[in-house]
């Protein structure tokens, strides 16, 4: 027990590890923020494409289905390897000359967009068909109905599962370490090599947890706020 505490939680080790791991952790936060924004937008696009009506959109829908099926089934670590090691070797202009950070963002975005597409889609399908019918009967177009009636209701309903996926994404930024990007886990590794102490990993774990908690609380408060606003009318 004493050995364990010393290896992972020695006060000196923790204190010394903080600046170094923090240095790497900032990269995780950047990965997370950029990937999340991209995922939010792209997943919405894919979800909308999957729901398009009519025969002409069939190839597009098929493409969207193939994409989500493929990237939901492929481990992130594999996607990261293929992108970060594979793309540069292909010597394609622009695509092959990006930084590891960009490859990291691309890997996370590709995989998580597939998950979040399904979340959006579940939300869109949860809106009762009568809402669409009412909107269309007022002469709103398909796009107007989606934009003003379906999506606002759908997105409200999927905030909690969306948050869940984003916590997953946040943690999975650590996987990007395998392509050689110097983020929190990499720094923790360097630290343990230099000082024969695992405190770096403990610090990284604490950072990840600290990042997650306010995120969860923030979303809770968003939901509460909206409920209050909608109920406030009652006197």
């Amino acid at each position, binding site marked *: 027990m004493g050995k364990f505490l010393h290896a992972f939680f020695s006060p000196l080790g923790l204190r010394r590890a903080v600046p170094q791991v923090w240095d790497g952790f900032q990269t995780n936060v950047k990965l997370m923020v950029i990937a999340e924004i991209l995922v939010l937008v792209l997943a919405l696009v894919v979800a909308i494409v999957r729901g398009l009506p009519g025969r002409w959109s069939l190839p597009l829908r098929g493409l969207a289905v193939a994409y989500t099926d493929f990237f939901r089934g492929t481990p992130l670590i594999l996607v990261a390897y293929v992108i970060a090691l594979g793309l540069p070797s292909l010597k394609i202009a622009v695509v092959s000359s990006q930084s590891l950070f960009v490859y990291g963002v691309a890997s996370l975005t590709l995989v998580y967009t597939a998950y979040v597409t399904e979340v959006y889609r579940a939300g869109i399908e949860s809106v009762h068909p009568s809402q669409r019918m009412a909107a*269309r009967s*007022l002469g709103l177009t398909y796009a107007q109905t989606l934009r003003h009636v379906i999506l606002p*209701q759908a997105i*409200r309903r999927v905030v909690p599962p969306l948050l869940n996926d984003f916590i997953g994404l946040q943690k999975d930024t650590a996987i990007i370490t395998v392509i050689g990007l110097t983020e929190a886990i990499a720094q923790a590794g360097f630290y343990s090599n230099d000082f024969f102490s695992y405190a770096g990993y403990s610090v990284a774990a604490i950072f990840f947890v600290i990042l997650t908690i306010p995120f969860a609380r923030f979303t809770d408060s968003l939901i509460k706020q909206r409920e209050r606003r909608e109920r406030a009318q009652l006197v």
Partner: protein
Amino acid sequence: MTKTDHFISVSALTKRFGDNEVLHEVDLTVDLHQVVCLIGASGSGKSTLLRCLNLLEPVDAGTIVIDGETVTNGKVDVNALRRRIGIVFQSFNLFPHMTVMQNIVLAPRKNRGLSKQEAEQRARELLGRIGLLDKADEFPDRLSGGQQQRVAIVRALAMDPKLMLLDEITSALDPQLVADVLSLVGDLAKSGMTMVIATHEMSFAREVADKVCFLDSGSILEEGPPGEIFSRPREPRTREFLSRVLEAGRM
């Protein structure tokens, strides 16, 4: 009078859901400023007929001509058509994430080119007429069913439709809330609005309708002025239906 002189003329309209033929070669004419009530048991095709009129349901066979325009030839701009035809549903179908005001002004702002001010002024005017001006900034779930349904009617009216379709709009309401909704519809009828109304409220139909059509398993079995249909129905099925309604105390 030729067919095209009617505001609406439906001929040989057939609609199937899978193997189930819900409407069988229905013929119907509605003149401008006329109020036509569709009566009949649940499942007789009243709602489907209404929904075919504004193409919410695709039509399998037959033609519908509205205001001189054939709407069943597949070339019509359905959105433009629906902007001229208001429809109100049994289940209100207000948008729950929008206030009453936002519900009303959405379509006029997007598709009638009205500014926010113009659309809201018109909405206030309409809300004032039904005594719900003070509810403008409430969300629909804060309103009673009767209030929601009146808002739904106003939402449809805000597009200044030439025709209103009412699909059993009082069937989901408590009895004491029905009167307010029906009196609003009565006012609309007096103002000359052309309406096709599917209803179970026979006394209301008798009062407001110029023509009553009795639907039975997807066909219009009998039609005529309300006095005739309700007092001297020719068809045994009509008589049977009306006596059942009478027993249920809805007359």
